């Protein structure tokens, strides 16, 4: 058994912000990607004009702008979210363990499965930064199509342009209870029946995590963590 002062579950934007605030923290993340809540959902973010309260969140916002991953119209390149968050975390020397899943929580002890096998982590304080389930969620796809399609609803889907002309983040609403098989089947069936104006659009990818809409954009999630949001167990 390994002991830590604090453990944060989830190296997403909220979790990384929270860990940077707390200090002396072990962060455990089930995936191998930082910021999965946005990077793996294809949630490209909205409400970018709301300034973060915390300077360190503002720093990440500046990184997005400096690397031309966010333009003045709020168009983004989701591909930038994780690598820039990794750079942000490395600068702060956060102790992050990737591909480490919590199997069960018993008091102050976590049964986890890491890349080296099963083990028990114990911490004085445990914070859960994983996204919270809600009555509705979104499965977001990345699609290519004719340039110039305006943002907005088209049939079952809500389109939003990415930074690249002719590339769109496409949202489909699901019930909070939908599993992956049902949601994926629904997406493909509705995509096959998409409106005529979208005939030339091609689905490239679907997100590999549901968007649970906990925060409007990654900077807001990071800012929330830096301000101390994130449930202490």
């Amino acid at each position, binding site marked *: 058994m390994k002991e830590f002062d604090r453990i944060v579950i989830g190296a997403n934007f909220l979790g990384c912000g929270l860990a940077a605030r707390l200090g002396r923290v072990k962060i455990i993340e089930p995936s191998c990607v930082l910021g999965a809540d946005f990077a793996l959902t294809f949630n490209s973010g909205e409400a970018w004009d709301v300034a973060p309260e915390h300077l360190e969140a503002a720093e990440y916002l500046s990184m997005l702008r400096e690397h031309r991953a966010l333009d003045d119209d709020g168009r983004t390149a989701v591909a930038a979210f994780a690598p820039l968050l990794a750079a942000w975390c490395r600068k702060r020397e956060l102790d992050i363990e990737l591909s480490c899943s919590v199997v069960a929580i018993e008091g102050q002890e976590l049964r986890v499965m*890491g890349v080296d096998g099963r083990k028990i982590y114990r911490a004085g304080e445990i914070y859960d930064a994983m996204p919270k389930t809600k009555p509705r969620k979104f499965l977001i796809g990345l699609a290519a199509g004719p340039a110039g399609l305006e943002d907005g609803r088209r049939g079952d889907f809500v389109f939003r342009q990415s930074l690249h002309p002719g590339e769109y983040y496409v949202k489909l609403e699901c019930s909070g209870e939908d599993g992956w098989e049902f949601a994926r*089947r629904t997406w493909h069936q509705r995509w096959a029946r998409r409106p005529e104006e979208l005939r030339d659009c091609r689905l490239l990818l679907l997100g590999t995590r549901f968007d649970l809409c906990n925060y409007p954009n990654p900077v807001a999630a990071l800012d929330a963590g830096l301000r101390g949001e994130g449930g202490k167990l």
Partner: protein
Amino acid sequence: MDKKPKSDYDVIVLGFGTAGAIAAIAAGRMGASVLVLEQNTYAGGTQSGGGITGFYGGPPPYGLTGEINAKIKAAVEAGGYGGELEVRKWILEEEALRVGVDIRYETTCYDVQREGRRVTGVRWGESRVLCEAQCRVLIDSSAEAVACRLVGCELLSGRATDGLYNTFTNTCLASNGNRVAGLNFDAGRINQYDPEVFSQTMLETAALHVLEDYSADSTTCGRAGHRVALSDLPGIREGFHVLTEEVLTIDDMFMGDAAQLPDPVAYVFTNLDTHTNDMPLESELFQDWMVGASMWGTQLWFPVIRENLVPKGWIGILAAARHLGVDHDIGQAVRMNGPMGRIGEVAGVLAALAAQAGHGDCLVVPIENLKRRLEDIPDRRGENEAVWGLPVEAIRAGLESDRPGFAIWSARHQRRVAELRAWYADAAPGSHLRRHAAMALALLGDRAGVDELRQAVIERDAFLPLTSRHSNHLRGYACLYLLGRLRDVESLELFFDVLKDDAIQNKYEYHTHAVAALIKVGEAHSDKRAAIAEFLRMLAEDPAWELRARLKETQSYPRIDQLFRLRIAAVLRQWGVPNQIGQVVLAMPLNAHDRALAEKCLATR
């Protein structure tokens, strides 16, 4: 809506990836009750989420993999999709659901239940609740041998010199506006079983995906386009292999035994696709093929037998993904999509037969039952003869050409020593025929051509054979490798001279092969060991000795290779020579992977 899993299954498949998805569908089609446990949220693994869709040359995939691939192609051609990745996830999932497979996504395998040496079930975490189910056969398709490690199967780990694996990618998906696919490059090495090294390496190499301008298109890996997402699969090419009832080795392939293997259940057709550039740390037979004959791109038929899937001494468990029972060298071939799909199909059918027989013992399933169910096992053993069975006239013509690989290998395979010596004696010094004959002789352990080999090294012979479509090896350092292979003590000064030549073209290759040659000579000639050890110690303790590794598509990412310093340290330790190499390495800027190796080196002094 969620459906609870049952408490008992014929077959549980751990991992819904390239092999596991096919295994689950195959077992389901056999009428077995099947549960899939997948840590991610989709089917297909590397072949979908990892962005690697192709079958890498050779004939189209056959069997169930071929059937499903045809459906995927048809769906893509029907329109509405930019590439296969998402279609593959969907079709694999639908095919599995159609035959009643229960799929549990976002699960973590936590324990494997067993009675003695028989596997009986699995415990897994799901939404932070521990669940369990019994099974007759567990198929471990996790690629990282997750279940096999939990149950305590014996494992094989990496290459013999330092235990390391092939390089990894840190996968990113990119779009050209029409189609999305994975960017397949090299990010260096990773240790995916050490949480600190794994995590730090993933974070360090995320820097490869930090761009100055994400709004611009660029050309990466030979393709124009832009990154759209990081993959949630790390892009690891190799890890543990399970010690199975039989392990297919490079010796089996190249020493003539593979053709005699009884009852293959799959053939895979591919090349030994290493991304390794530190070739002198690989096995000698592997280097014979890659460096001595420049055969990187040559495709071969590799037979797989049932016993390659059955962990040694265990009942009720199969290893069916890239961690199956092959050695490090062969693992670089059978890890491809086509082989993985076929191996998944074999595992699914075999597991279903064993489960339905009630015993779960895959080794007692009559092989004819298995082969009958697999229907179309093409027997292509004879095709390897085209690679190493050239007639003697063709061997001579090949040696005279700029594509000498097949001729060198045929001469070696057929042990044409007399002919090679005669051609060598008759040919003009420096000619293709004489030099290639000398190389073939060296592969046979024959010293008749050493003068020509030495001359090639002295000249820094810049001839690049055209045997492979790329990744050929310059004849100059190939001859240096062969002199080391011959433990040619008379070339000692030549090896020293190469290592003193800091301005040498292809310094990485010349210097690393020279180090390897010195070690071999030192091991074979104890009277020379002290002088060699002193030279190597001074070399490796000199911080100015810098080896810049070249990694595919990531030339801009600095990678100063420390593995040869550490190799020298390990050899000097064996020879009883004190040194400060570990401290020298630790004082240098290191990535997480190399730092861990250097610390281990110091700890084992």
